[in-house]
């Protein structure tokens, strides 16, 4: 049975996230970052940053609220029991720092079938309070046995 690609192109409401220094600390510790810029405002400023920066992969924290409704959308129709996160790409722009407000929008970019698997590709675009793009993500979920 071919996958239903009718949700391709569907866009989801923006999600706003306020970046906080202690959340950055918690995330940085969980992934084992030891660079002082993630923990110490003085070290961050000495490195030319506005404030404590988020590690690049903190992108998943502020994007999740935009991606969730897209991936869970019944119109997209992902069978979660057979889904795996197949691939992920991020392209980073302006650094994200404590105090920033990040707005993320998500879109169902592509749905297709290949080798008996369904591929569901979502794109997220995150911008800061000044309208600068901070990250663009491509999230690929694969459903086996479609």
């Amino acid at each position, binding site marked *: 049975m071919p996958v239903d690609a009718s949700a391709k192109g569907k866009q989801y409401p923006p999600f706003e996230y306020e970046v906080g220094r202690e*959340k950055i600390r*918690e*995330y940085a*510790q*969980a*992934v*084992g*970052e030891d*660079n002082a*810029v*993630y923990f110490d405002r003085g070290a961050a400023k000495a*490195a030319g940053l506005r404030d404590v*920066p*988020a*590690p*690049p*992969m903190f992108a*998943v*924290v502020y994007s*999740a609220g935009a991606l969730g409704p897209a991936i869970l959308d019944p119109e997209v129709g992902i069978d979660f029991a057979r889904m*795996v*996160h*197949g*691939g*992920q*790409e*991020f*392209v*980073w722009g302006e*650094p994200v720092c404590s105090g920033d407000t990040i707005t993320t929008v998500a879109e169902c970019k592509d749905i297709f079938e290949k080798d008996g698997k369904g591929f569901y590709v979502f794109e997220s675009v995150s911008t800061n309070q000044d309208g600068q793009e901070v990250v663009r993500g*491509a999230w690929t979920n694969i459903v086996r046995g479609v």
Partner: protein
Amino acid sequence: MDVGDSIPELRVTPDRFLPHRYAGASGDFNPIHIDREFATQVGLPGNILHGLYGMALVARANAAAAGGDPRSLKRLSVQFRGMGLPEQEIVVTGTVTATDGDRATVDTVAEQAGKQIIKNAVAELRSP
């Protein structure tokens, strides 16, 4: 960095409760990552690491190779393969495949017990 150079290897052994801390930090509380009983009931060998945690280790190894500044990592794409488990060492290795001025492209893999858990990872770095 020159074409053919290896980036410094990153070796990390996530402890038993790392998936719980990563769940809290990331907001991903899928029980396959934090509930051993649930995970084994759905046919997994145990509660498994978050794929995006493995990707964060790949990001760390690449940013470290460019001096550690978060602004040095411009792009990272990965494929998740297999599954990572807590309490086993993860080894991240990479090789520079292209350079252009202050930019470098690094092919990276993350392995655990000799099996790739992240493959075809490509990072674009910019020297600060």
